[in-house]
């Protein structure tokens, strides 16, 4: 592996145990940083509003992203469309800290993801299961997150994806080495990645939970299921008291095993985002890009 890829995986390691928050303005970015976000995701509209607005959703205005970069000292991430390497080049040109090749935006390519190994900046990608995660890593992603179902406030898909990934990992670790060739073929991944997972019992990169996290309890649930940190999108700035909720989620991620503390953190947070149930949505963003 080259040095740049190692450095990019290392940055994700520094984010572990932290909360990455979606923000749309410098003011929201400042609130997120104050509340203890370990990074912010700069985007023009949060997923819940993207879902409500419909239409084609694209990379954010670089001027807006730069405004957020100038406001905070923590890492700033931004999203590009799946397969849209020119958007990724633009984000690299403005020295973004991490690019999210994201199913939240409208896909630009229905077959190919970006060849992320051609970039110096790191990429995070969504995945529903182990095969997807390892395919993205093979393309050069240096961090993985569950896809979940963005903008719904419904945790069910993030839970499903995290469980799928973890059970996929457990399955590989229980295999004989000669069975890995067939497993690699089935997962559509190179043999060496299957071998890495079998020998280490985890992905070769950091794995966060994302998509539908709205409460401290949601965050604690995902951490106990094996997430190394969480992304919170619409859950914060679509709620009644964003700063208090954000701060509570940050503390719940640090002390996810202390149920007394998480109980206290869950008190009096104001209204949570309204949320849409899985069965009520017509657009499944998680089905974009496989």
């Amino acid at each position, binding site marked *: 592996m080259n040095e740049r890829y190692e450095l990019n995986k290392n940055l994700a390691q520094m984010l572990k*145990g932290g909360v990455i928050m979606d923000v749309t303005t410098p003011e929201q970015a400042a609130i997120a940083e104050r509340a203890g976000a370990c990074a912010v995701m700069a985007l023009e509209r949060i997923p819940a509003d993207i879902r409500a607005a419909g239409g084609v959703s694209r990379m954010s205005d670089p001027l807006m992203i730069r405004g957020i970069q100038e406001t905070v000292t923590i890492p700033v991430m931004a999203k590009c469309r799946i397969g849209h390497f020119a958007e990724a080049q633009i984000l690299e040109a403005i020295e973004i800290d*991490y690019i999210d090749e994201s199913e939240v935006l409208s896909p630009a390519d229905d077959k190919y993801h970006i060849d992320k190994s051609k970039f110096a900046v790191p990429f995070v990608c969504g995945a529903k299961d182990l095969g997807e995660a390892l395919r993205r890593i093979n393309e050069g992603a240096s961090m993985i997150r569950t896809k979940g179902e963005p903008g719904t406030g419904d945790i069910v898909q993030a839970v499903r994806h995290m469980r799928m990934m973890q059970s996929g990992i457990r399955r590989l670790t229980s295999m004989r080495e000669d069975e890995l060739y067939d497993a690699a073929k089935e997962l559509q991944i190179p043999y060496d990645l299957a071998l890495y997972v079998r020998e280490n019992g985890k992905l070769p990169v950091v794995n966060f939970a994302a998509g539908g996290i709205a409460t401290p309890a949601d965050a604690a649930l995902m951490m106990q299921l094996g997430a190394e940190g969480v992304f919170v999108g619409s859950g914060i700035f679509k709620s009644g008291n964003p700063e208090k909720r954000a701060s509570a989620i*940050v*503390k719940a991620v640090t002390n996810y095993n202390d149920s007394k*503390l998480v109980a206290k953190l869950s008190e009096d947070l104001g209204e949570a985002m309204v949320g849409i149930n899985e069965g009520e949505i017509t657009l499944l963003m998680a089905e974009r890009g496989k």
Partner: protein
Amino acid sequence: MRIGVLALQGAFAEHIKKLDELDVESFEIRQLGDIKKPFDGLILPGGESTVMGKLLRDLELLEPLKALICDGMPVFGTCAGLLLLAKDFSGEGTPVFSSMDIKARRNAYGRQLGSFCANADFLGVGNIQMTFIRAPYIESAGADVTVLSETGGHIVAATQGKQLVTAFHPELNEGHGIHKYFLEELR
């Protein structure tokens, strides 16, 4: 010997792994209850210093840990950990433990594209590989501070009394030289 590793956020697991490999007992510090039992040294890992500073205050860990550091408990801060110990900043930064007489510059090499690896001499350890991730450096150090390493014309490791700081991440590289150096302080 028991070492507490601040585990509020960041790359604390990598430090614990290094200590395990050296057969040194360690434990995670996530809340006040974790530091009730006595321990012999403290590691402040890499991560985001703003997050750790806030959680130290909110979880009421700041004052008790600061008292231990001021009483002479050996402490080792890497990257964000360096910032937690610094007394002064050039540019943005809020003092947290404010126990070490150094002036630090946050994100001194810029954004992630500025992250890099280097080889440099570390006093008493030798030439080692160093990994800098959105790293700070030490702009200036007080008279009681001993500079342990410089690279690119900037101070990247220093010690004062029982405090050791590195702007880079020895927990991410091969070898145990810097962790051994810290553990020597405890003996």
